[in-house]
């Protein structure tokens, strides 16, 4: 009996790396940034802290949308459903006497729990029909919430439990809450994408049929991502409801949230961790500099997103990364020939 192996692996020495540079730089940079952003409200003017709060709310939403669309291929235009449900879950818990800040993780859990049955309906549709169905779900949630008198009905009501805080304190604490939620969401997404789940998602994105035949349970993977994104958007809604404590359905369930998530992810770069953050920065710079001109910032951002989808589908960060071969938060692997290959 021959003992010769059937396949002889080429004796190439390859190096497999995650980072394009020493990870030490990323870790140190991240730590410095985390410290700076944590002490920010003590340093910067209060007005700027409010802007930063809104910025991080958008970062949370965009990161979740990017996870849905950029990694799991689900274009949802109904994520405002979970923003709204998160806000209203917080409101409900606050009415029942819970501290609104304590209610944030519970609001996220409520959204995750509601997302599970919703996926069983939505996953019957695919592509564009899935997209509009998410919007129908959001519209339905808005209409149902609008009929509940305790939650303020269609006209809205103020978040209880914040009255003993001064406006400055509210701004300060809601910034910290938002920043910590954003930190958890971005770090959690990063860890998730580096794990086995990230590999599964990448395989679905690149070739769904091949992934399925290799034993990947595509539906279950999509379902868990949808639930995670619902929880993240719910947390965003919770901090939104604390930082802008007058809660009304038309604001919390606003389609504009979906538009903003989509635009900043597109502009920054779908399928990268950095993309939504960079997109959010661009969005905020435009919004702040054009705030005298009404809705023009949204028109410009929308047109920019369309142009990028058509001509630079990997987004600004994707283009930058392709050109300079650098990554700040790598989730994949780089394979390079070693010094003494073959």
């Amino acid at each position, binding site marked *: 009996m021959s003992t010769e192996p059937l396949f002889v692996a080429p004796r190439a020495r390859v190096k497999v790396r995650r980072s394009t540079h020493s990870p030490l730089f990323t870790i140190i940079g991240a730590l410095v940034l985390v410290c700076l952003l944590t002490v920010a409200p003590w340093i910067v003017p209060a007005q700027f802290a409010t802007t930063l709060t809104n910025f991080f709310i958008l970062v949370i939403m965009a990161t979740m949308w990017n996870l849905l669309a950029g990694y799991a291929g689900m274009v949802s235009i109904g994520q405002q459903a979970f923003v709204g449900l998160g806000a209203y879950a917080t409101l409900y818990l606050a009415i029942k006497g819970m501290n609104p800040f304590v209610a944030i993780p519970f609001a996220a859990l409520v959204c995750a729990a509601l997302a599970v049955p919703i996926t069983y309906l939505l996953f019957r549709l695919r592509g564009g029909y899935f997209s509009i169905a998410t919007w129908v779900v959001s519209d339905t949630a808005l209409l149902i919430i609008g009929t509940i008198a305790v939650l303020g009905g269609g006209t809205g009501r103020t978040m209880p439990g914040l009255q003993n805080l001064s406006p400055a304190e509210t701004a300060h604490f809601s910034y910290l809450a938002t920043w910590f939620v954003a930190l958890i969401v971005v770090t959690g997404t990063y860890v998730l994408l580096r794990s086995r789940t990230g590999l599964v998602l990448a395989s679905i994105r690149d070739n769904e049929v091949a992934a399925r035949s290799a034993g990947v349970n595509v539906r279950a993977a999509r379902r868990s991502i949808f639930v995670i994104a619902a929880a993240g958007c719910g947390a965003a809604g919770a901090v939104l409801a604390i930082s802008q404590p007058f809660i009304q359905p038309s604001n919390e369930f606003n389609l504009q949230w979906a538009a903003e998530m989509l635009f900043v992810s597109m502009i920054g770069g779908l399928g990268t961790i950095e993309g939504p953050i960079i997109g959010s920065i661009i969005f905020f710079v435009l919004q702040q500099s054009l705030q005298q001109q009404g809705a023009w910032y949204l*028109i410009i951002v929308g047109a920019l997103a369309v142009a990028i989808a058509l001509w630079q589908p990997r987004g600004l960060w994707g283009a930058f990364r392709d050109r300079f071969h650098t990554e700040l938060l790598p989730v994949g692997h780089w394979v390079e020939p070693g010094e003494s290959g073959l």
Partner: protein
Amino acid sequence: MIWLNIVIQGALVGGFYALFACGLSLMFGVLKVINLAHGDMAVVAGYVAVFLSPRLHIPGLWSFLVVVPIFALLGYVVQRTLIQKSIDRDPFTTLLVTFGLSVVIENLLLEMYSANGQSINIGSLIGESWHPASIIYISYVSLAVLAAAVLVLLALQLFLSKSGIGRLIRAVADDQEAAQLSGANYRHVFGIAAAIAFATVALAGIAYGMMTQFAPTSGGVNLLFAFEVVVIGGIGSLWGTLVGGIALGIAQQFGAHINLSYQILAGNVLFLAVLAVRPQGLFGRRSSLA
């Protein structure tokens, strides 16, 4: 009698929904594109009609004679440029691009015309109705819109089954590559299909402007209704669109009868129920779902 009225009013509104939805259905059936800017296109048609009819001295009622050809041309051009370019990338991109367009159009209209409602002036006709029984009033405008919806669906059906171009459209819809191998220029065929879809959406937008007031944000709600109609009726079935429209209209009237704030909710619930029980829609085949 109340119930009869609910059914009649629902069917009248349903005619409008069907007219609105058939462009969406056609775009999906042939191009496999969900145009998320569909509703906003209709609103744009309404604004164009309001803008043009006093300047060209045509009465609002007949403004569609001008606007519909303009939109057919626009449909062809938009398809051959923006939409074709995104189809060439992937279906994912068409969603992002049409959603982006939808938000851009809505906010441009908001900047140009403010959020105030507009309507197409059709004189005293708006208030006139046929009054066959004690509480039943059938508005002539709604009746005309229902008739227009039936006519458009009938014309589309005949066009797709009898004419040469119609057969070409169906061939491309069935198997793009085979049609291309037989010498069909699928991009041109896509353009024609988009032109027809845009023409129907212009008609729907004008009908909407005659029946009620519209604002820059009206597009989104109507896209939702059109989409619900397509799913309820069955994806890819033209007559399903009419039945779906009428079913949605009746559900909404029924909801409004219970409580005025339940009008849209009842439609959404019908949609979700159909999705749960019969996802292929009332007239759809299961295979068309994927």
